[in-house]
C-alpha cells in the first residue's frame, strides 16, 4: 500500500515536472545566467580586494578586520543574489511540486514571524534568541495533519552569535491522546535535563539508551508514548537527509521531530546549474517524501501508532 502510494507520487511528480515545471522555468534560464554573472561580478572583486589588502593592512589596527569584512561581503553578495533567484523560482514551481503530495501547501515564511518560542518551550532544540526561517510546508497524509518547517536557530547577538540548530522540524498530529511532556534527546553523560519540570527516565532498550536520553514529567505516559516498537524504529531509522542527530518531543497531542542536518534543505535554483536541472528537483521531492514517510514509518496515522 505504501509502495503503491510512493510510486503514484513519483509518477505524479515526473509527469508534472516535464509537463508543467520545465515549460514554466525555461523562461528563467537567461535570468539565471545573468544572475550568475552578477553574483560573480559582485563577489569576486570584493573577495580579491579583501585577500590582497590583507597583505598590506595587517600591520594597522582593524586592518585585518576590514579585509575579512570585504571577503564576507563578497560571499554574502553571492549568497543574496542566489537566494533571491531561488525564491523567485520557488514562487513559480512549488505549488506544482506540492500538488504531487496529498494536500500539501508551501509557504515562504518571513523571518521571525513563525516563532512563538514553541521549540524552546517544549525543549526540542537548544535555547535560542532568534530564528531565520526558510521553507514551510503544511499538509495531510492518510488523514494525519503535518507541517515541515526549515530554519536555523541562533543564540546570542553580534559577535557572539552561534547557530544552535540548522535543519527541519516535522510536526505531526497524533491520534494518541496524552497530557504531559516527554522529550527524547541525544544521549549525554550526566543526563542533564533540559527543563526543571522534566526528569530523566531510563527505558528497557539498551541500544536506544546508548543513543538517546528520555526526559519526562510522567513516567507512565513516557512509556505509553515510547513503546518498544518506537524505540526499535528510532534505533533502525535511516536518518532522513543523513541528519547528524534527531530529537523528539511530545506535547499537546503532537509529535515534533527535529532533524539536525546542518545544511540547507529543499534547495533549487542553483546558479551554477541549468534552471531545469532534474536532479535538483528530484532531490527536493525525495526530501519531502522521506519526511512524509515518517508518518507511515512511525504508524502515526493509526490510533495504536508508535
Amino acid at each position: 500500500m505504501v509502495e503503491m502510494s510512493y510510486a503514484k507520487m513519483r509518477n505524479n511528480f515526473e509527469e508534472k515536472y516535464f509537463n508543467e515545471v520545465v515549460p514554466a522555468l525555461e523562461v528563467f534560464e537567461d535570468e539565471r545566467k545573468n544572475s550568475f554573472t552578477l553574483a560573480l561580478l559582485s563577489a569576486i572583486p570584493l573577495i580579491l580586494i579583501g585577500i590582497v589588502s590583507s597583505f598590506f593592512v595587517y600591520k594597522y589596527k582593524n586592518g585585518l578586520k576590514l579585509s575579512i569584512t570585504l571577503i564576507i561581503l563578497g560571499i554574502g553578495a553571492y549568497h543574496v543574489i542566489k537566494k533571491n533567484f531561488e525564491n523567485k523560482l520557488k514562487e513559480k514551481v512549488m505549488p506544482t511540486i506540492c500538488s504531487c503530495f496529498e494536500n500539501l501547501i508551501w509557504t515562504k515564511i518571513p523571518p521571525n514571524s513563525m516563532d512563538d518560542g514553541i521549540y524552546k518551550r517544549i525543549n526540542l532544540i537548544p535555547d535560542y534568541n532568534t530564528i531565520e526561517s526558510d521553507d514551510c510546508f503544511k499538509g495531510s497524509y492518510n488523514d494525519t495533519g503535518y507541517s515541515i518547517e526549515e530554519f536555523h536557530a541562533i543564540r546570542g547577538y553580534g559577535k557572539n552569535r552561534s547557530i544552535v540548530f540548522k535543519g527541519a522540524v516535522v510536526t505531526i498530529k497524533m491520534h494518541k491522546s496524552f497530557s504531559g511532556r516527554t522529550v527524547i534527546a541525544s544521549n549525554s553523560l550526566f543526563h542533564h535535563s533540559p527543563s526543571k519540570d522534566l526528569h530523566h527516565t531510563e527505558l528497557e532498550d539498551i541500544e536506544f539508551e546508548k543513543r538517546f536520553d528520555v526526559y519526562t514529567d510522567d513516567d507512565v505516559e513516557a512509556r505509553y508514548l515510547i513503546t518498544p516498537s518506537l524505540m526499535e524504529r528510532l534505533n533502525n531509522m535511516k536518518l532522513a537527509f543523513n541528519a547528524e542527530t534527531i530529537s523528539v518531543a511530545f506535547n499537546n497531542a503532537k509529535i515534533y521531530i527535529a532533524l539536525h542536518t546542518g545544511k540547507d534543505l529543499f534547495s533549487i535554483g542553483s546558479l551554477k546549474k541549468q534552471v531545469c536541472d532534474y536532479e535538483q528537483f528530484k532531490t527536493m521531492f525525495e526530501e519531502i517524501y522521506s519526511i512524509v514517510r515518517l508518518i507511515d514509518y512511525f504508524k502515526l496515522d493509526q490510533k495504536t501508532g508508535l
Partner: protein
Amino acid sequence: MFILPIILIVVTFVILIWLYGIYVSVIQKRNKVQEAFSSIDVQLKKRYDLIPNILTIAQKFMDHERSLIEDVTKLRTQAVSLSNDISNIDKKMQLSSEIADKMKQLIVAVENYPQLKSDATMVTAMQTYNEVEEHIAAARRFYNSAANDLKNAVEIFPSSLVASMVGVKAVSFFEATESERKSVNASDYLK
C-alpha cells in the same frame, strides 16, 4: 599532634555522609516502587470502571456469551475489592491477567455479532479500552523498571548493607502469566 584526630573526624564525617547518601537512595528507590505500583492501580481502576459499560452494551446483543460476561463481572468484583497494598501485588497481577484474558475472548467474540461490532457506542468503548490497556502496559513497564532499581540496590554492595539494616526488601516483577504467554488461537473463540 592534633592532626590525626582531625583527620579521623573528617574521614568519619565523610563516611557518614556517604552512608546517608546510600540510605536516601535506597529509600527513594523503595518509594518509587510504591509510586509505580500506585500508577498501575490508577490504570487498573480505569479499566474496571470501563468494563461494566462494555458488558452492558455487549449483553444486549451477545445472547450466547452470558457465561463469559458473568465470569468477567465476577473477576472484576474480586479485583476491585482488593486493597491498595503492595503485599497484594501477586493477587492483583493474577486477577488482572485473568480479566485481560476474558476480555480478549469477549473482544474476539464481538466479531460474531456484526450489529454489535458496528454499534458506535461499542466502537468508542473498545477504543477507550485499548487505550487503557496500553496505559496498563506502560504502568507495568514503569513498575518493573522501579522494581529492578530497588532489586539492584538491595542485592549489590554497599547499598545491600544499608537496605538490610533498614529492612528494605526487593519486590517481585510484574510478569506475564502462563495464559498470557500462550499463543492465542482465534478459532477457539470465533464460530
